């Protein structure tokens, strides 16, 4: 279980990115973190694995206080937290396989990783994962030869190869088209349920979040202003999180579009299987 206790972050410029966030994520639960740009979503996720050092407050992963760890222990604990990024953050000049294997860096010594001598079972797992995310034949390509959706799949495979207990996912679909976005979100939620992973997913697209997660947390100006089921996300709540806007018209239109997209997707799937 992941537990945040009064987690705060103040950047040097003086603005409070996080103001005492309390949050519990039980094992295996996928949580979507929504909120306007600048609400502190990315900061929150980065404070959990301390890519950004929190100013105060605590992070607990099970019984371990992540915020109290020295650098060596922190590296060990980071292995349990897989991270997926908006712009994929792959090493562009390395191959797909090297990128996936880099998920194991926390388990492998420097020289072994330098000479790319990863343990045989790790390589087996990497191949299996590439098959799972549908990239088997691309393993020897350079990462910058892939499309956006394929790159994000590599990013996902890298995070999963870490054998994490929780995934920290930062805007996984923000750079992708609507169809690929759904496929990526579906893949992430499937992998989480297959492997009993918890996840915190930062996401802009509220409708997409509602489709794939069990719980939604709304963040506004560094504070949690909503925590509930996707269905409880009423217009009033959206206004509370994002500010005044005509949600109904927008929502209707999105739903319409989504229905259309779903139908066309189903047709395409039929075409593929037929």
């Amino acid at each position, binding site marked *: 279980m992941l537990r945040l206790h009064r987690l705060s972050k103040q950047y040097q410029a003086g603005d409070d990115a996080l103001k005492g966030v309390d949050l519990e994520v039980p094992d295996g639960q996928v949580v979507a973190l929504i909120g306007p740009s600048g609400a502190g979503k990315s900061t929150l996720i980065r404070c959990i694995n301390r890519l950004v050092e929190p100013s105060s407050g605590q992070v607990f992963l099970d019984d371990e206080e992540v915020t109290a760890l020295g650098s060596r222990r922190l590296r060990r604990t980071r292995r349990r937290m897989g991270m997926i990024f908006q712009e994929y953050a*792959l*090493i*562009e000049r390395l191959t797909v396989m090297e990128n996936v294997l880099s*998920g194991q*860096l926390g388990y492998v010594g420097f020289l072994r990783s330098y000479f790319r001598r990863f343990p045989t079972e790790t390589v087996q797992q990497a191949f299996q994962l590439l098959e799972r995310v549908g990239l088997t034949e691309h393993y020897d390509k350079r990462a910058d030869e892939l499309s956006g959706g394929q790159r994000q799949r590599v990013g996902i495979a890298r995070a999963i190869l870490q054998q994490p207990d929780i995934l920290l996912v930062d805007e996984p679909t923000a750079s992708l088209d609507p169809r690929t976005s759904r496929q990526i979100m579906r893949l992430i939620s499937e992998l989480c349920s297959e492997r009993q992973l918890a996840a915190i997913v930062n996401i802009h697209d509220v409708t997409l979040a509602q489709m794939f997660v069990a719980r939604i947390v709304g963040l506004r100006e560094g504070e949690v202003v909503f925590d509930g089921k996707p269905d409880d996300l009423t217009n009033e709540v959206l206004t509370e999180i994002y500010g005044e806007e005509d949600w109904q018209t927008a929502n209707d239109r999105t739903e319409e579009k989504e229905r259309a997209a779903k139908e066309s997707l189903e047709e395409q799937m039929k075409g593929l299987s037929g």
Partner: protein
Amino acid sequence: MAGDGELLVWRRRTRARELLVWAGWLLGVSLFIFCWQTIAANTTWYFVADAPRVAADIGDRMVPPKWSYAAKLWGPLWDTINIATLGTILSVLLATPIAFLAATNTTPSTRFVRPLALLIIVSSRSINSLIWGLLLVTIIGPGVVAGIFAITFRSIGFVAKLLYEAIEEIDQRQVEAIAATGANGGQVITFAIWPQILPAFAGTSVFRWDINIRESTVLGLVGAGGIGLELQASINIVAWQQVSVILLAILSTVIVSEWVSAKVRHAVI
């Protein structure tokens, strides 16, 4: 906008700025004229007027090149190439760690280590390789070794500077991604940073090697080995026909090195 009948005026600069720009130009042009006059006053115009004739005369004495002399140049030429190549390799080996210490995003300490690394870079860059050569010939005696170190010391700053700028321009998200896996510092450098700066590293090294080929041809003038020694000897005995052979040898070496460097840079980028 045009409704109230008033014309809206837009100018690139305000009036005060306009005047300032004109004043700047006036100052620059006056300075140029002043310098021109100073230089003109200090020139012996007789020699300048005579220059085309002297040049033609030397050119005349240079042809035909004494081709038989070329056979004696292979040794010094080989020395020159070795000075450049070994000097470049040494400088790259030394410059790489310095670059990591100098880059703001990889230095262990911005207050103590980084200024030191920058000092090394600046002092290496501010001294020309000929002057390094002069110093080193005095310290370790004339010969190829002095040449190699002269090239090394001059190149460290150049390579380290371009390299640390490349390190500072890397995509930090890739570093985050690797750090997030629990990788240690060395793994972050080799997996996240090194692949990103590899093109800059290869390009800079080859570019510097190309420059060093040219610089090492003159190092012999101060006794630091290579083809420059022959050049000076030939000029001293006014053997212009040998000088022309040496110049041609240098020219062809430089052309080859430029070709190699262009090929390599094209291959890595």
